[in-house]
């Protein structure tokens, strides 16, 4: 029964990683860049929903929606100001810019909200008791897993069925050819950032509901872990991000429970290294064929 409890907590933690990883993987798939500021957008989402709920007294759902709007806008602005001018620059320049944006967001939050952690009120509270109270699952866990599944299905349908979703896939494969179809590549990349950042806001609210302390660095570690999850599952692949996130969460939870709390992060990354040695493209990654 204990094992089951650990598994459940791993799956719900993994669901948060998966939601964040989806943002990383979609942006990478289309813009071919690693947006290291993605983790800090989570933190911004956390602060916005925190302020909306505690200062304005809005209900949790409304504050999360506001956070989603703010983060969507933030994602679009970051892309337009920081990344778009570097579209044909070397990849390293874009990467360094992303790290710069990450620090900019963290330090702006530090300046605005201070270094003291804020106590975040979970969006839902309470637990579900199962098997005569032997297994208790918090409602926030259930909500997280449900959100993750809904988001995953919605994104899969969006990219498979809709006109803009197909345009995203076209851009991810060949931007030049996509332009020749009449697709506005800049607008498509903007849309990708918008979706990724909206998801980051959801992840921010869920993350802070799990561990209710909110600081300017709140997004860093989950951001890096979610990036790891995206690579683990195969960067650029939506189901890969989902699978990678869940597995990462479960490995982390089990390592914490059975091996060592201090070593859990090391174990997670060790597993990642082993997987990448065997499957360099990640679990569901495609080996890209170079065009002749």
């Amino acid at each position, binding site marked *: 029964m204990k094992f089951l409890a650990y598994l459940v907590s791993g799956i719900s933690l993994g669901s948060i990683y998966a939601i964040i990883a989806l943002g990383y993987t979609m942006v990478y798939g289309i813009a071919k860049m690693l947006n290291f500021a993605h983790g800090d957008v989570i933190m911004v989402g956390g602060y916005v929903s925190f302020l909306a709920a505690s200062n304005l007294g809005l209900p949790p759902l409304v504050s999360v929606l506001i956070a989603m709007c703010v983060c969507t806008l933030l994602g679009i602005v970051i892309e337009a100001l920081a990344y778009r001018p570097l579209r044909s620059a070397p990849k390293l320049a874009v990467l360094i810019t992303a790290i710069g944006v990450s620090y900019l967001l963290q330090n702006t939050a530090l300046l605005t909200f201070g270094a003291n952690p804020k106590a975040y009120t979970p969006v839902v509270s309470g637990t579900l008791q199962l098997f005569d109270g032997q297994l208790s699952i918090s409602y926030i866990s259930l909500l997280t897993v449900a959100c993750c599944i809904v988001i995953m299905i919605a994104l899969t349908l969006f990219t498979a069925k809709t006109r803009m979703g*197909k*345009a995203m896939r076209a851009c991810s494969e060949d931007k030049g050819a996509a*332009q*020749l179809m*009449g697709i506005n590549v800049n607008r498509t990349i903007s849309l990708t950032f918008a979706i990724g950042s909206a998801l980051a806001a959801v992840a921010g609210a869920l993350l802070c509901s799990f561990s209710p302390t909110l600081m300017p660095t709140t997004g860093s570690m989950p951001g890096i872990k979610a990036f790891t999850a995206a690579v683990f599952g195969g960067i650029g692949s939506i189901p890969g991000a989902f699978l990678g996130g869940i597995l990462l969460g479960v490995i982390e939870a089990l390592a914490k429970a059975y091996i060592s709390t201090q070593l859990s992060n090391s174990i997670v990354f060790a597993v990642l290294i082993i997987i990448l040695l065997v499957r360099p493209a990640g679990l569901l990654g495609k080996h890209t064929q170079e065009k002749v």
Partner: protein
Amino acid sequence: MMLKAEDLNVYYGPIHAVKGVSFEVREGEIVTLIGSNGAGKSTTLKTLSGLMRSRGGRIEFMDKSIASTAPHKIVELGLAHVPEGRRIFTRMTVEENLDMGAFIKKNADLEQDKERVFEQFPRLKERRKQIAGTLSGGEQQMLAMGRALMSQPKLLMLDEPSMGLAPILVEQVFDIITALHKAGTTILLVEQNAEMALSIADRAYVMETGRITLSGTGEELAASEEVQKAYLGG
């Protein structure tokens, strides 16, 4: 005048790939641009569709200057470009590729447009659910052309449609080009297969190291001594 290019100069970094090229395409014509590898033919087409930019010079399409228009806007004006190497979306199905071809026609009847393309390319209909990357080279060329036709272009630019195809497929591709032309599409064809290209062209231009060196009707050029020597193995 459907398309008029004047004094195009295109650079890849320090390399001057297209040097003062001017030419025109009239409505209803098949015009071909022939020349050897590296002469600047593909670069010229990329400049017309907006993927590359000319330093100075003018490009007019249907009496509208498009020299600084974004590529996705140029498609909307009715200029479609089937690029060299086909560049189909290999991870998408045949049908999805065609959907992308009709991207600019937001509210159009996709099914009807697809049926029209399938009539021209029955092979694509058989394979509509197949992942495009698994098609044979000939089928991929058909798909690239069919995809461009989904936008119902006024001018279709084809870059080396015969490249890498078996002789029988080359014939097929040229038959289709002639049929499209008969159905009213104006065509600008870039080819290394000069013999085939000249046989169907109303007019032709010869490009050499970034410059247009000869022009005339298809027949004139096919008969000219220089072209015979350089491109037709005569």
